[in-house]
């Protein structure tokens, strides 16, 4: 698998910036630790040279930032990994930003580590984590360097990646990939096969950890409302902190429902959850139900697709038929 390097991205960014094609670059900025990479806007070459990074921790989905970045003067350069490109299309479909103000450079991706997955390998004293071919090399203060097979230690969302294809770009760096057939609904099926009681217990255990930090909402590229219903006193569901277990369920059901048919399954929600709640399993449940009952659909696969919840067929299956498990083949 051909991957692109920091240097390739940097020189692309520098040349586009200096030629005046773009006025700003949306990129990743290095932090205190290897895994601590922050999305950032770079306006000068020196800023880029100084702190632009591209490594295995650059998983943040940039598309959402375009809503505010395109409001500024001029054009912005954005690097789109396959995941980001789906969100990019979905936001375009929803008229959330002006395509003309973006210069999109597609970059291939075969998986990104995240904090949780690297900490699973080295809980403490991580000094260094780099990819070397198919190996992930980790150094800690205590153990020196250890190697792991990269593909094996990836977080689930990358192991079960739906697509390695950048679906929208002005320019592509490296070779584009394809849509995969990863069995990403296996976990959903496992839950579906449980009894109601077991599922209830499972989710009770997961959701009860929710601290309503809103990280899932804030990172989600589908959650781009000007004002979230949970922040709006007039909505009737406004709620800042969880007071009763009901509100965990209310928040997560409503959030999943609001992004149903629009969620691109990028997995950012689960990545940022400080409580490690598998939130993507909620979204995937909707995607799975939509695929089975209304035809396969990947949000953002093309610009202008009509989302399943703002569409219908007269011969859609009836609710009770779906609930009884009678699904459309």
């Amino acid at each position: 698998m051909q991957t692109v390097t920091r240097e390739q991205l940097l020189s692309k960014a520098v040349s586009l910036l200096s030629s005046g094609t773009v006025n700003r670059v949306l990129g990743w900025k290095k932090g205190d630790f290897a895994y601590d990479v922050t999305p950032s806007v770079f306006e000068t070459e020196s800023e880029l040279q100084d702190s632009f990074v591209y490594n295995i921790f650059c998983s943040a989905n940039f598309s959402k930032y375009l809503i505010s970045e395109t409001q500024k003067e001029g054009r912005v350069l954005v690097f789109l990994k396959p995941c980001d490109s789906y969100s990019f299309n979905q936001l375009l479909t929803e008229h959330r930003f002006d395509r003309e103000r973006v210069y999109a450079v597609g970059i291939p991706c075969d998986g990104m580590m995240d904090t949780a997955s690297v900490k699973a390998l080295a809980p403490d004293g991580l000094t260094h984590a780099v990819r070397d071919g198919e190996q992930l090399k980790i150094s800690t203060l205590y153990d020196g360097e250890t190697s792991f097979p990269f593909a094996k230690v990836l977080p689930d969302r990358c192991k079960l990646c739906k697509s390695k294809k950048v679906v929208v770009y002005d320019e592509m760096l490296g070779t584009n990939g394809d849509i995969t057939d990863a069995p990403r609904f296996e976990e959903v099926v496992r839950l579906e096969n449980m009894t109601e009681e077991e599922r209830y217990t499972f989710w009770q255990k997961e959701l009860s950890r929710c601290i309503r930090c809103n990280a899932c909402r804030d990172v989600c590229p589908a959650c781009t409302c000007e004002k979230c219903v949970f922040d709006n006193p007039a909505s009737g569901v406004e709620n800042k902190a969880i007071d009763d277990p009901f509100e965990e369920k209310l928040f997560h059901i409503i959030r999943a429902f609001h992004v149903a048919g629009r969620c691109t399954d990028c997995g950012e929600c689960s990545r940022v959850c400080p409580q490690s709640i598998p939130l993507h399993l909620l979204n995937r449940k909707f995607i799975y139900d939509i695929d089975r009952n209304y035809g396969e659909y990947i949000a953002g696969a093309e610009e202008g697709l009509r989302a399943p919840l703002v569409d219908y067929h007269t011969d859609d299956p009836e609710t009770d038929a779906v609930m009884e498990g009678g699904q459309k083949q």
Partner: protein
Amino acid sequence: MQINNTTEFRPKIVAFCCNWCSYAGADLAGNNRLSYPADIKIIRVPCSCRVNPTFILRAFQRGADGVILCGCHPGDCHYTSGNYYTRRRMTLLFSMMNYLGIEKERTRVEWVSAAEGAKFAAVMQDFAQTVAALGESKRLEDLRCKQ
């Protein structure tokens, strides 16, 4: 205080009915004096597609034991397509609620036309019975609302 175990459990059931078909169907059930349990309380909405998932969750939060949504038969919507959207939305919502372990018998979508007074009564009978058999709704309760 004496705990009285003998009182029969009466479920609280909210029925959202679209104005044009199901509400009229309920009226027809009334006209024909077709009885159904008083546990069913109807909320009139212009179309079944007016029912926001929030309302349904809200009902459970406030102590409802079952929620039923009634609309025109597919193809008969007064607004031509409202119930088709309802069908997708409620399928997904109810499926999700069940995925979280909420008993699937507590939620239901039924198509009842203005001519189906008898069906309305029968559906409500059946739904009330089903919900009553499940007992009090616990999995979506909000203890603050149960004082």
